[in-house]
């Protein structure tokens, strides 16, 4: 099946990103396709490049980038990001920044859309 993921909360304070991450890993292991992860609202904070948690703590930006290397598309909403200061210069990869049309695209091409 094809899963589209919507993440609306920021990292660390809320568990949403952790749950979404574990879901994505399990879905891929089971042979499903992740059509993309759309970061909206405070979710855009998950892609801040300057994250530097203590060494014994997970770095959420990095574990997401590892997923990206495995082919998972990450999309940071440009409007939500601009408002909050997650822009070209502060996001981990400027190419991830895109518009809300991408969220609709996920709704269209995915069999299931899941809000975290």
């Amino acid at each position, binding site marked *: 099946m094809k899963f589209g993921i919507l993440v609306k909360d920021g990292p660390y304070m809320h568990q949403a990103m952790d749950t979404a991450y574990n879901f994505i890993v*399990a879905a891929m292991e089971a042979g499903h396709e992740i059509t993309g992860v759309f970061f909206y609202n405070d979710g855009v904070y998950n892609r801040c490049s300057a994250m530097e948690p203590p060494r014994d703590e997970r770095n959420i930006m990095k574990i997401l980038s590892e997923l990206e290397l495995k082919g998972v598309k990450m999309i940071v909403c440009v409007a939500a990001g601009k408002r909050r200061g997650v822009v070209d210069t502060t996001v981990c990869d400027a190419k991830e920044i895109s518009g809300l049309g991408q969220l609709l695209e996920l709704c269209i091409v995915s069999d299931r859309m899941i*809000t975290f």
Partner: protein
Amino acid sequence: MLHIIKKSPYETNALNDSINYLMENDIVLLIEDAVYTVKKGGKFEDTVKGILQNNKVYCLEADIKARGISEGEIVENVKLIDYKGFVEKVCEQNPVTWP
């Protein structure tokens, strides 16, 4: 539909709000702080039993173990699933999240 609930029922009304929307064959999936719902002896034991009369209730195992609730402390007939099971449930039913 697969109703995904994330918040503690002691803190927010998301659980009650979602119960209003349960249809026949719908599934309730409790994740994150919502897993406190199924603790025996807690205020929501009867609520869970009520849901179970018509619908299945699943609970994310990692979340409930993380919070120190052992299997013996969980209301009967609530089923534990791992993230793989979570994925399977989403395949079975269209998910709606009650944040």
